[in-house]
Every structure is written in structure tokens, then in C-alpha cells.
């Protein structure tokens, strides 16, 4: 029995020593240190992102006066609304068209800037980033004046060529064109700077090898540049798709969703329904509809990035 006690004491001491050293090891591990360093940010995100997200899910399950749990009642109600489906369609048109053009313009301009000699390149980079660094609410106000029904600078200029006046914000086609145009103007510099960074990381030897193989300009882009930029293109597109889909300020300032609701996006319609019409649960429900659509896009794009990452 005494032996056993001694043995137990030894085992206990050894276990205590192991525990102490494993705690020291754990604390000494880089990943643990990294976790503690990021903890404040994680807490901040939990407070400012996760809590509101779960709260909006909770709101979306209440009735209009927020006194009763209705489950998916608000969602099924929305499915029957003609305006809701119009908003879904418009959000897709807006986001997809704007992202395609932003990517295209960003790609082309990045090439131009890349080919400018290093000495003058910084100035061009700075100037081209201006639309992206101005707060969008301010720059959109300037666009509003350009499109203004009474004082449109565009219509004034066009009148010298015998064209117009164009109802920039009063006609469905032109109103959609205008909000997409402003979004492209604002977002293209982001694509440009990302693509420029990617272009700079493509090794020159690849182009030299392609040139020796007799590749022309188009073949160099198709077989060298694009494959080397694929991950950046995918990530940038995903990021921009999310931001564009959730856009609020441009539409709110330029058209408020009009004419006849034909420029409403999820965010602007959610605001109109939730805040202006005092139906907060339905507004929360509208804004939550962005989540599954963006989640599907994110899964497809990130899966592709992972696949290529593994191949590499």
C-alpha cells in the first residue's frame, strides 16, 4: 500500500511537471501567441459583426410589430412580392455588370500603368486612385449634379452636339446605366491597383521565354499573365462582388431606387421597407437575402482558388 502511495505521489509529481511544461510549451508556441495577439480583433469582430448579424436573424423572425415569433413567415411573404423579385434581379444585374466592367477597365489600365516608366508611374498610380479614396457619398453627390434634371452638365454639353436632353435618372434604362457607371468609376481603381501588384509579381523570365518561343502579345497575356494573376483576379472579383452587391450609397443618393423601383438594390430596398416604412423585421429579412447568394459565389470562387493553390 505504501509503495502504491509513493508511486502515486511520483506519478502525480510527474504529471504536474508535464502539465506545467505543456502549458509553457503551449504559451511558447507561435500559434498561441498569434491567437492572443489577434484576440482583440476577434472580440471586436464578434461585437461589431457577429452580434449584429445574429440580431438581424432574430429580427427577421419577428412579426411587423416585433411582438411575436413568426419563423420563416417574413421570408415566405417576400417570395410572393413582385417588387422583391425585381430587387433580386436588379441587384444581380447591377453587381455582375459593374464587377465585369470594373475588372475589365482595371485590367486594361493596370497594363497601361505597368508600361509607364518607373519614374512617372507613382504620379499616375496616385491620380488613378483618386475616385477610390474619395468618400463615395461625396463623389456621388458630384455625379448627382452632373445628372441633375435642371442643371445637368452632361445634357448641357450634349446640347452643343444636338443630342438630348437625356433623362439620366428619370428613365429605367438610363437610371440603371447611371448607377452602374458611377459604381464602375468608383470601384475600377481598386481592381487597377490589385492587378498592378499582381503584374509586378510576374517574373520577367516567363515573358522572355514566351518571346523566345515566338508568342505574340495576345498569347503572352493568355498563357503567361492571366494564369499568373488568376488567384488575384478571383479574390478581387469575390471581394468586389460582395461590396457591390451590398451597395447602398450610390443608389440612395442618385435615384432612391426610382423610377418605379427599377434601380433598388437589396440594401436600399431594405432601408425603405425597414426604416422608412417602420417594418424592421421585413427590412432585416430583405438584407439577409444577400447572404445565401453571396455565400454561393464565395464557395465557388474560393474553392477554385484552393484548388489552384493545391496544384501549385
Amino acid at each position, binding site marked *: 500500500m505504501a509503495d502504491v502511495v509513493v508511486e502515486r505521489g511520483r506519478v502525480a509529481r510527474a504529471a504536474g511537471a508535464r502539465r506545467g511544461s505543456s502549458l509553457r510549451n503551449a504559451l511558447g508556441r507561435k500559434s498561441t501567441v498569434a491567437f492572443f495577439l489577434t484576440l482583440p480583433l476577434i472580440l471586436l469582430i464578434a461585437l461589431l459583426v457577429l452580434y449584429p448579424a445574429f440580431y438581424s436573424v432574430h429580427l427577421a423572425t419577428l*412579426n411587423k410589430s416585433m411582438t411575436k415569433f413568426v419563423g420563416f413567415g417574413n421570408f415566405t411573404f417576400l417570395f410572393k412580392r413582385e417588387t422583391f423579385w425585381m430587387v433580386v434581379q436588379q441587384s444581380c444585374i447591377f453587381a455582375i455588370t459593374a464587377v465585369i466592367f470594373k475588372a475589365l477597365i482595371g485590367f486594361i489600365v493596370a497594363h497601361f500603368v505597368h508600361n509607364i516608366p518607373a519614374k512617372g508611374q507613382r504620379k499616375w498610380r496616385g491620380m488613378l486612385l483618386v475616385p477610390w479614396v474619395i468618400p463615395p457619398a461625396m463623389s456621388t453627390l458630384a455625379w448627382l449634379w452632373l445628372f441633375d434634371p435642371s442643371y445637368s452638365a452632361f445634357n448641357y454639353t450634349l446640347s452643343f452636339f444636338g443630342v438630348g436632353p437625356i433623362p439620366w435618372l428619370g428613365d429605367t434604362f438610363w437610371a440603371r446605366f447611371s448607377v452602374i457607371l458611377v459604381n464602375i468609376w468608383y470601384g475600377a481603381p481598386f481592381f487597377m491597383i490589385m492587378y498592378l501588384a499582381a503584374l509586378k509579381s510576374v517574373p520577367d523570365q516567363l515573358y522572355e521565354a514566351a518571346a523566345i518561343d515566338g508568342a505574340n502579345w495576345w498569347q503572352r497575356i493568355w498563357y503567361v499573365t492571366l494564369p499568373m494573376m488568376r488567384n488575384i483576379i478571383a479574390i478581387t472579383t469575390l471581394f468586389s462582388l460582395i461590396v457591390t452587391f451590398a451597395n447602398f450609397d450610390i443608389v440612395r443618393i442618385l435615384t432612391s431606387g426610382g423610377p418605379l423601383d427599377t434601380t433598388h438594390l437589396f440594401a436600399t430596398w431594405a432601408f425603405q421597407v425597414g426604416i422608412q416604412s417602420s417594418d424592421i423585421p421585413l427590412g432585416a429579412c430583405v438584407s439577409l437575402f444577400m447572404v445565401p447568394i453571396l455565400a454561393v459565389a464565395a464557395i465557388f470562387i474560393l474553392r477554385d482558388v484552393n484548388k489552384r493553390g493545391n496544384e501549385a
Partner: protein
Amino acid sequence: MSRKTLTRRQFVAATAMSSAALITAPYVRGAYAAGKLSIGFWDHWVPGANKASTDLVNEWAAKEKVEVSIDYITSNNKKIELTAAAEAQAKSGHDILQMPSWWPQAYAENLEPLNDVVEPLLKQNGEVNGTVKYLGNSGGKWLAVPATPGSQIKGPCSRIDLMKQHAGIDVQEMYPAGSPPKADNWTMETFLKAAEACQKAGFAFGIGLGETTDSVDTAGAIFQSFGAELVNAKGDITVKTDQVRQAMEFYKKLIAFLPPDAPSWDDASNNKWLISGRGAMILNPPSAWAVAKRDAPQVAEQCWTHGFPSGPKGRFAPYLPYFWGVWSFGKNKEAAKSLLVHLSAPSSIEKFVAVSGGYDLPAYANMTKFKTWAEEGPPKGTLYHYPDPHKHQTLSIAASPAPPKIAQQIYFQATLTKMALRYARGETLEQALAWAEGECEGFMRS
């Protein structure tokens, strides 16, 4: 036998009780005692008008020994609505919050009943119109006090010269300064003919067809003058009626004479239209005229604010009142009520009107003949008929008399302007009505 010594236990108890009394004192006192009061006022767009509110509050605070803090909240981009929504959700915020028209009804459950404030005010200042009762009273409970700052009528502001020249209408003769209107012939038919004549002459009426309040308010008054209601007072959908059809026919004719980009107009567009000299009339409070006085004096001196044309069911003018509400979760309700009584005194109301250059309209019947409206100019007397001193028209709000929580949605979803625009843009009347009926069905959620 009286004890003269104080034990340690008694001393501690007495100290604790006096500390508790001191800490809680500001929240348990009567109206005329100290404490803190937090106020959220609408940020007035007339320069200097906020000062009137600040001065009146400070005057009251000094007398009542209350510590006050005022936030002026802009109505741009619905900041007041956002503040109200956030405070109602958080059950915390200002003690008094100034709210636009529909908000007292929207937050009825969170507002302190103010019958003890409003009923004596009605005796003192005169009755309020039906729209104020519709928006501020629910089942006999006054949800908020009618506020003078921000309350407005959106009646016609006409160009004297252009209306005379192109439409043959002398608006000054029809609405003479200092006298009752002689406007029996000022009907929807005359209005339509004038709109056509002015449009042909290149000075179209500046009436928006957008989704913001100016466009909706105009549509509301026109629909009401035809007796057209999308939802009646009982909450029944009444879209497919002859009255609504008549109003739609009228609107379609009117739209043909409005600027082609009117569907994209916001609340600033009609002001710009008048100030730029391109329009013979807009439907707006005198803010456009006030800006024209500064930026385009030659336009301002030709402006005359007057009454709305009458339709088959009467003469209705768009009226948009503001309210002061007291949250039921507020910490100093008694002081809040006392301040609201002070802000609603005749002398305070006269001050609000004078400082805002006649823009602010009191809701009370006895408060429509201040000298500000008679004397403001140029031209002198241009605002005389703005507060409707001769009770010439019914002051109404679009989408009434539907139950307020349904009407609010009809109003903010701009159902009236949208259905009129759909019809004017090629949908058949029945298609436009069916669309509006579907929308109203969606607004019935409770």
C-alpha cells in the same frame, strides 16, 4: 426621554439614506425642479432658426433649474427616423425627440401619453386640424405634442408674371393679401389648363413624380380632392373605385404637361426648378421662395404662395406636421412635459414663426394670423395665405384616412405616384390598379 447621542450605526444609516436621496432626487422630483433633460430637435434648414429653439429651452432651463443638452438632428437621409428607430430598439436615448409626421404612430407603444399636456394646450391655443389628430392621437391617447418647427403646408407657389401671361390667372387677385380668397374658379380643371398653357410656353409646373415626400404629398392631395382612397379608414382596400379611376385619369393628363424627368425628382428638384426660372409653379412650403430671395431675387419678387385647387370632393392641401414625443423609457418625463408646455406657449410659437421667416406652421387654430406671414416679402403679403388663415382648404396627408400603420407604407413606398406613373407610361388603367391593389395587400401585415 429624548436621546441626544448619535450611535455609529445611526450615523451610517442616516448617511446612506441621505446619499440615496441625493442620487435619486433628480428623477423623482416634480415638474418644476432640477434634473437633467436630453433633447433631440430637428435641425432646421432656415439659418438661425435653431437658435430660437436653443434660446427658448435655455430660458426654461434657467427658470426651472434643469440641466439640458440639445442635439440638432438633420432630416437629410432620414437621420431622425434612424435615431427614432435606434432609440426605440435600445429603450434609451433622448428624453424628448422631435419626430416627423408618421413616427408617433409608428412608435406609439414606446411613447408616453401626453393628454395632460396637449388637452390644456388645445384650450389655450385652439383646436388642431384633423391630420394632426390622425397622426398624433391614437384611441384618445395623445402620443406627442404638435411641434411648430418643421410643420408645413406644401401648397402652390406660383410665378405671378408667368401665370398671368401664359395661363391668364392673376394669383394675387385670387388670393389677395390680407383678405379671404376669391378662388371659387380655382379648380383641378383650371389647374390642368394652366399646366398645359405654361408647359407649351416653356414654363412647365414643377411637380415631381419621384418617391420622396414632395411628390407623394402632391399626389395625396390630388387623390383626396377626387375622394380617391387606396385603403379606407376601416382598413379595407378600395383601389378599384370610380374615384381612384378619376384621379388616375386626371394624373395621366397632368403628367403629360410636367417636365420629362419629373420621375427622378427629389425634394430639392422642385426648388431648383423654381429658382432657375424654368417653372411657373411648384407645390412646396416657402423654402424655395426664401432661397430665391437670396439667390435669384428677380424670381422671388414674382412668387406668390396660395391655396390648392379644388376637386370634385373638396379642396385639400398637403400638410406635414412635426411632433415632439416623450419616450416612455425617458428618465425625466415630468421635466420633458414642462418644457413642451413652454415651447407651445403662444409667445414661443410666434418666435418660431418669426425666426423661420414664416416657414414653420403652428398646428393650432388660433395661431394662423401672426404678422410675420402678413409682412414677409417681396412681394409683401406673399406668405399671407400660406398658413390658410381663412380655413379655405382641408389640410391632409397622403394615404389618409387608412389606418396610420398601413398609410405610412403607402406613403413611403410612394404607391400613389408609382401607380399614376405606370398608367402614364403605358400600362392600362386596370393593370396599374391591380398592381396598387397587390401592393396594398402587402401593407396589411401586422
